[in-house]
């Protein structure tokens, strides 16, 4: 028996969330006494694949095929289910990324497996039963889910499990799945990725701003602060609704849910729907000119003041700190 972990690559590279899921799967394998097999689909160089050994994979299955260069959830689902069977996997772990969300339910369905989506902790394992904590009600609560099927699928939220290096190494094997042409009816036409931008769900620091910024022309100070911190930028819903910022930056109950180490909210009132998307951030800093803004009630640190004065000063202070 084994634990199988699917590692997603972005243009041939593994990002932090890939190492997170390998570390997470390794911790499960250690508990159940199974070996850990990683599987990669796409064009990834051997030198990158072998890195997975350092996070606990003892074997890496490499699926390289021109037709599989782009992610198609139906095709990838078939391959991962096939690999899970041939590896006799009792758990399949993957990232709850945008692609992972379209993929995990397919794998689970094919394997008659229970699916835990958005896991934020390791499972509590007793025999064949896994208990898992996940966020529910748009981060307003946690639910504990009990999985009792023979095979289980776990989609782990980005940024919720720490990467752990084991110093191990992995053997790389090529894996040739049987391809079903019916699985390729979705054709990828175009991929646009702003490579200079940090991806919001994975960012460790997020600088976010709201209607208090008054207009899109004022976002320079937000971007400068984000830049010194190496942070991703985000915004409240009215800001993206007004097209001051792209929809992909909107966080909250109806936007992206983030759980960075540091979330800095500038000129955002802290409406319940906004908080739903950010409340699992480890540290929250609020900058708002209104001392009564509800956001202060859920913040760790706050500055009552005008964003247009405070933010540039904070950026300067951080520059000084980074250079010291």
């Amino acid at each position, binding site marked *: 028996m084994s634990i199988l972990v699917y590692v997603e690559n*972005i243009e041939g590279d593994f*990002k932090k969330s890939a190492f997170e899921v390998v570390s997470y799967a390794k911790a499960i394998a250690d508990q159940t006494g199974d070996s850990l097999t990683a599987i990669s689909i796409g064009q990834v160089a051997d030198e990158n694949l072998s890195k997975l050994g350092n996070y606990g994979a003892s074997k890496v299955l490499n699926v390289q095929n021109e037709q599989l260069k782009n*992610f198609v*959830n*139906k095709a990838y*689902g078939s391959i991962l289910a096939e690999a899970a069977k041939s590896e006799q996997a009792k758990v399949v772990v993957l990232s709850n990324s*945008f692609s992972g*969300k*379209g993929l995990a*339910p*397919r794998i689970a*369905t094919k394997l*008659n497996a229970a*699916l835990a*989506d958005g896991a934020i902790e390791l499972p509590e394992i007793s025999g064949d039963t896994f208990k898992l*904590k996940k*966020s*529910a*009600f*748009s981060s307003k*609560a*946690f*639910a504990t*889910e*009990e999985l*009792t*099927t023979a095979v289980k699928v776990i989609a782990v939220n980005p940024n919720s499990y720490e990467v752990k290096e084991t110093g191990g190494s992995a053997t790389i094997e090529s894996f040739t799945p049987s391809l079903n042409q*019916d699985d390729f*009816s*979705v*054709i*990828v036409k*175009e*991929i*646009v990725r702003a490579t200079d*931008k940090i*991806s*919001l*769900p994975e960012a460790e*620091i997020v600088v976010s701003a709201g209607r208090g910024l008054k207009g899109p022309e004022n976002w320079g100070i937000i971007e400068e602060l984000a830049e010194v911190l190496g942070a991703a930028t985000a915004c409240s819903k009215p800001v*993206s609704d007004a097209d001051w910022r792209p929809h*992909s930056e*909107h966080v909250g109950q*109806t*936007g992206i849910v983030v759980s960075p180490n540091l979330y800095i909210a500038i000129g955002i009132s802290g409406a319940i*729907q906004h908080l739903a998307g950010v*409340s699992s951030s*480890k*540290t*929250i*800093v609020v900058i708002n000119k209104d001392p009564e803004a509800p956001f*202060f009630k*859920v913040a*760790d*640190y*706050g*500055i009552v003041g005008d964003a247009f*004065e405070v933010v540039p000063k904070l950026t*300067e*202070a951080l520059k000084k700190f980074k250079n010291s």
Partner: protein
Amino acid sequence: MFKTLIIMKILVCISNVPDTTSKITFTDNNTAFNSNGIQYIINPYDEIALAKAVELAEGGNASVTVINVGDQSTEPTIRKALAVGADEAVRINAAPRDAWFVANQIANYVKENPVDLILTGRESIDYNGTQVTAIVAELLNLPSVSIAKKLTINNNEATIEREIEGGKEVVSTSLPVVVGTAEGVAEPKIPNMRGIMSARTKPLNVIEPIDVTVLSKITGYESPTPRGAVTLVDAGNVDELVNLLHSKAKVI
């Protein structure tokens, strides 16, 4: 004027969820959601799916059916969807145990009543699974796109923009397809008086559920632990904030 003869059948899956301002609490020793005093609404993402379907049906060459898996208490929400412009509604008469159960009910309905396009929201704001979309597709052996930001239909072809980390991807596929809609696909529509009046007489068919194996269950809930009181820093002293973030919070 020619009217195209192709009638596209669209199925919109709607979930009945607590209003976004709801305080979430639990009863029965934290094993059940406390629905006391909760206002229910159409899941906000499903409103987007519904608005898109109604848009596609304008001009008369598509029909829109909404489907909900729920007990009788969800009927006001279903009527709202009819008021927004759906032609008819189906309710599968069962409490929605989980995404696996819901998706099986929907897939079973579609097997008996084939459609050209199935729209869901990207996720339900109560259980946030983003599961139903892809499970329905898998059960019906159909293609799917789970988090769509744009959707256009041309003849028999769907072009969909989906969100990916740090960017977007444009894909195309022929119908039928299952699409989970997020913001950007359409603006939610508010029903007008005529819509509300006509909704009362539109068909709402109630269908009994099929049996579905239990794969998992929720055994308990927890509320997040509240944060301690905020530490306020003077606006003139940002260095202190930098210091706290570095030495106390250890995040920079």
